[in-house]
């Protein structure tokens, strides 16, 4: 894979606060690359360093092999779609889009040719003579996109560009963005705090937390094989059970859970010694419930029918909350709140993770609600 952008041990601090810590990764040509994380995780600062608005304190940023760490934004061949679009209010849509090529001193004929092409790609032809204030949010969004793409940048940087749109428009724009990206074939670097958005559009995702990149991988890798408790909790819903390693073999671990229950989990690259603490992660849809037999004991708190699945909230005797999505197919015990059940899963669907250092993973129920509230 040809890389367009390379970050080499990039660090950025504001005063004593480390905003970005040791960012070190490649972004490939034509890739849709997302930086995902909660606010304050350093994703926007990383983007601003790639754009040239901030300079790294140490490390290097390479753009198509050239060190651009100290190059001002107007001499870098990357363009940004800003969170609130930052369209020039005193210019028409056409002049907004023409601003880039005109600033780069292209011939006016070439400028017009490019503007025409981009207005077509973004379906803005009939709005060319309007001012930004006369456009809807979605249209402004497309102007911002056209204006940033018209310079044919090596990479397009997008800073939560859909944040200001309502849910429905946001979903439509996700598809639209992906279409435009395929059409122009330019690398997109997309910053978001919305895991669903990142999963929907990205070829690869970098999950960031507190200034560090926790994991980089395809959406599937990130979802099925998270490498930290934070990633597991941030992407989708994860059940996290405290565990102690008793044996390791061939990327597999045997652990004991609370109550001396034994369980198996995949643990690729796991280097910890037997006896050390760890966390066992299972996705809710991988859990099965049975009325008795082997498995981890848990008491059903609530069961909510949600159409395709029944969403069950359970609590283990030592107080760990577990969410299980029980499908309508296959055997299913009679679900009665207050009763005790057994949780079962295949060893392949469980994953052993290092024990989280400090805070518990985000409460996903709460976060989803927040996201929905934030979109209005």
């Amino acid at each position, binding site marked *: 894979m040809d890389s367009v952008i390379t970050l080499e041990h990039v660090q950025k601090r504001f005063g004593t606060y480390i905003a970005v810590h040791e960012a070190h990764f490649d972004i490939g040509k034509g890739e849709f690359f997302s930086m995902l994380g909660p606010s304050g995780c350093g994703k926007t600062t990383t983007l601003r360093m790639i754009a040239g608005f901030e300079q790294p304190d140490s490390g290097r940023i390479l753009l198509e092999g050239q060190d651009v760490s100290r190059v001002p934004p*107007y001499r870098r061949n990357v363009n940004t779609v800003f969170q*609130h679009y930052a369209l020039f*209010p005193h210019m028409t849509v056409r002049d907004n889009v023409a*601003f880039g090529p005109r600033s*780069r001193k292209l011939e006016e004929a070439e400028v017009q040719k490019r503007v025409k092409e981009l207005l077509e790609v973004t379906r803005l032809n009939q709005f060319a003579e309007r001012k930004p204030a006369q456009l809807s949010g979605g249209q402004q969004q497309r102007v911002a996109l056209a204006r940033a793409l018209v310079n044919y940048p090596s990479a397009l940087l997008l800073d939560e560009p859909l944040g200001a749109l309502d849910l429905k428009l946001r979903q439509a724009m996700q598809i639209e963005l992906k279409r435009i990206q395929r059409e122009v074939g330019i690398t997109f670097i997309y910053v978001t705090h919305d895991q669903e958005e990142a999963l929907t559009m990205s070829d690869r995702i970098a999950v960031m937390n507190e200034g560090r990149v926790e994991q980089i991988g395809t959406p599937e890798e990130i979802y099925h094989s998270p490498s930290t408790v934070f990633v597991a909790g941030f992407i989708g819903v994860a059940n996290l059970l405290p565990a102690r390693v008793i044996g390791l073999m061939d990327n597999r671990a045997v652990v004991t859970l609370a109550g001396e229950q034994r369980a198996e989990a995949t643990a690729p690259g796991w280097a910890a010694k037997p006896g050390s603490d760890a966390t066992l992660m299972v996705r809710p849809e991988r859990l099965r419930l049975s009325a008795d037999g082997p498995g981890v004991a848990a008491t059903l708190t609530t069961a909510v029918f949600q159409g395709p699945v029944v969403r069950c909230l359970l609590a283990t005797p030592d107080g760990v909350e577990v969410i299980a999505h029980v499908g309508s197919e296959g055997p299913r015990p009679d679900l009665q709140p207050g009763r005790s059940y057994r949780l079962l899963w295949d060893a392949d669907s469980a994953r052993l993770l290092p024990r989280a250092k400090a805070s518990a993973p985000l409460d996903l129920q709460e976060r989803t609600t927040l996201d929905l509230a934030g979109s209005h």
Partner: protein
Amino acid sequence: MARGGPVGSRWTGRLLDLYAGLVLLYLFLPIFVIVSYSFNKPAGKFNFVWKSFSLDAWRDPFLYPALVDAMKMSLKVAAVSTSVSVVFGSLIALALCRYTWKGAGPINLLLVLPLTTPEVVLGSSLLSLFLQVNAPTGFWTVVIAHIMFSVSYVALTVKARIRGFDWTLEEAAMDLGAPPFRTVLKVTLPLIAPGIAAAGMLSFALSLDDFIITLFNAGNQVTYPLYVYGARRAAFPPQINVLATTILVGSLILLGITVLWQNRTMKEAMTK
């Protein structure tokens, strides 16, 4: 005009209207007198008592060369001092709004100082300064004195106008390939221009109007206010009122244009 508030009766409403009317009358009566007396045909040298309507003064506004010279002097001082203070004042305002830096607090304080200091103090201390450095008082000392207080007015006016300006527009321009100079020329300036124009008009009017500071520092030069002050003893022709009225009408037209322009541009420039 009376709007029934929760405790308002018809009478309190009427009283409020009357009160508002009296205040407006109080504010505009002097201006009305100035304008109407430009159409007076005074009995003697002094245009202080109404005699009869006449267009004589309007037909020959430049009858008195000394008055015309004073007006020219005033316009020249206003033009030069405004040009300089608009540049300096706007730059100060930009620096204060655009960046957070240690000097911002003291600078803000210093800006207000010339506005709150009594003019007599400013005028006399400036004069003593000019005398100490052996600067001959005249046109340039008046210009320097006017720049001194105009810079404050311009900086404060521009600052108030560009509060809330969306600075990411500058980042956007640079991101698209515009070097800093082009960014300022094509994006920042067009958007803050109405604020600067308003500040310029204010500065021009203040310079034209200033009497006390000018009196101290004008040497043997005579500006329009100084001429009018002197004229009350020898002769007070209606041409004074004619020139005053012309300036009034001129500034009203300019003001109207600026307000319209501003409403259009500034609204666009603000975030959201």
